[in-house]
């Protein structure tokens, strides 16, 4: 069994240093603009910050993967090209891309730098992935969270590139790169502006009894009673009243996080090359806890032991975890 790469999130320089110190093999990050899918206020890297951070990561033998994984709207592609050129100049180890125009630009202008296909590209068939490999020399695909472990194994046998899968963190609607729920409500696109549920449109309203209502724009997403755990204010995690159902119910997905710690040996045996931790928007405390726990687990498996991970439940959304489609297509 090959040793998998542990790919860890970094929303700030401090989070990146934390990930490197906690044992990340690679960190992924983005610039402070719409070119990446975590374009949150106050998050991400300026060019000078990335220069310093890459030097620090490389000194610790950690690779830096730059996410340029949103889709440029017509007429605005220069911002994406500039992000790529800066990343190349700074010396990142790979670009994570979703858009075929951006992939083509990198392939033609920076062929020496590895291309990883973002989960945002939603490539989930061998045919689609082979196309990206053939046309743009993609070296790794980040698989959408819709495949079971046996399906991933079959995929590994058929495609000519490495496979990266998510192992921990946010569990969305499984249509990465295609979700327009935020766009419908706020006018901003997760896929083009890089932000789901922009904070400027989010409101938390607490009543005297301690119940908390979360709203995105004019839409109420949920109302948590005072003794209920909360989730992110994303439409996909909302609880709605509809005539088709008695009482409020989670129409799409519930507040829950992915945690594949017990499936790690199966994923590694299935041919997964890289294990990805979600959470560039999370704190360095989260990065430290999750990266250290998974570092220990992967090392333990490589040494013939069992992956032992505990203590991460407090970090999960709604304080609940799932193995999602990796375990079964009917996880809800």
């Amino acid at each position: 069994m090959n040793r998998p790469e542990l790919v860890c999130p970094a929303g700030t320089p401090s989070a990146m240093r934390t990930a490197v110190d906690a044992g990340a093999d690679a960190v992924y990050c983005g610039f402070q603009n719409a070119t990446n899918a975590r374009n949150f206020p106050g998050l991400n890297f300026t060019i000078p910050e990335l220069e310093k951070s890459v030097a620090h990561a490389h000194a610790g033998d950690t690779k830096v993967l730059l996410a340029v994984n949103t889709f440029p709207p017509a007429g605005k592609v220069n911002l994406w090209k500039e992000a790529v050129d800066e990343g190349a100049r700074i010396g990142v180890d790979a670009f994570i891309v979703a858009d075929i125009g951006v992939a083509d630009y990198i392939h033609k202008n920076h062929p020496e730098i590895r291309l990883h296909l973002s989960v945002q590209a939603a490539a989930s068939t061998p045919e689609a992935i082979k196309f990206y490999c053939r046309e743009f020399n993609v070296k790794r695909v980040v698989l959408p969270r819709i495949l079971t472990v046996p399906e991933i194994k079959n995929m590994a046998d058929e495609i000519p590139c490495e496979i990266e899968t998510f192992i921990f963190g946010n569990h969305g609607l499984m249509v990465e790169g295609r979700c327009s729920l935020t766009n419908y409500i706020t006018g901003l696109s997760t896929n083009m502006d890089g932000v789901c549920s922009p904070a400027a449109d989010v409101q938390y309203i607490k009543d005297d009894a301690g119940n908390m209502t979360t709203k995105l724009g004019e839409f109420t997403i949920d109302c948590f009673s005072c003794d209920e755990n909360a989730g992110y204010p994303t439409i996909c995690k909302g609880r709605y009243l509809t005539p088709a159902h008695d009482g409020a119910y989670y129409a799409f997905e519930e507040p829950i996080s992915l945690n594949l710690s017990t499936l790690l040996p199966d994923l590694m045996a299935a041919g997964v090359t890289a294990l990805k931790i979600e959470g560039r928007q999370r704190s360095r405390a989260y990065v430290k806890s999750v990266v250290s726990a998974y570092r220990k687990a992967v090392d333990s498996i490589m040494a013939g032991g069992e992956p032992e991970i505990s203590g991460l439940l407090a970090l999960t959304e709604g304080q609940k975890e799932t193995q999602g489609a990796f375990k079964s297509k009917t996880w809800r």
Partner: protein
Amino acid sequence: MSNLAEFKAAIGQDMTHTNPTPEISASSPHLARWMPPAPLFMLQPILRRIVKRVARENPDMFGRLGPHYKANFVIDPMNLPFVLLLRPDPDNLFLRAYRRRDLPDHDAKISGKFLDLLMLVDGDVDGDALFFARELTITGNTEAVVCLRNALDDVDGSIASDVANMFGPVGRTTLSALRRAKQRQTSN
């Protein structure tokens, strides 16, 4: 004012309490009762010193605030008898204590237990996790709060330790006691 008196005033502790290694029970919802309110006028110059020191040590953090550096944040340690008003404008820093009943005008309010807020400022606890567990409440301008959170989270090292160092050994001992209290709370 002595270092001890200043530090205790800064954390809202009784000025006459002289035990330098206080045993603080974080699990008690009544920290406020354990720590009778210091007269607020004594707190204000200390808070000014604290915020200036933090700003001087971490000038880069202001960049992450974007347009919200002029926002007024109420920080509400729910188990203490006062709230803090913070305006992180590097040219006109403002940190001042108010009695809860005199809540000042603000753009956003962040409420939680004192020790949770302390750990949050220090990057020792994940804000989203506190939010999921309903230990942290945010109202008002969510974007401003996200910016402030990201600005503080990018500060390497410990802001709380920096502040404690301002008050010498007494500050450090008291901070250790607070951290032990938090650890006991977490492991219970």
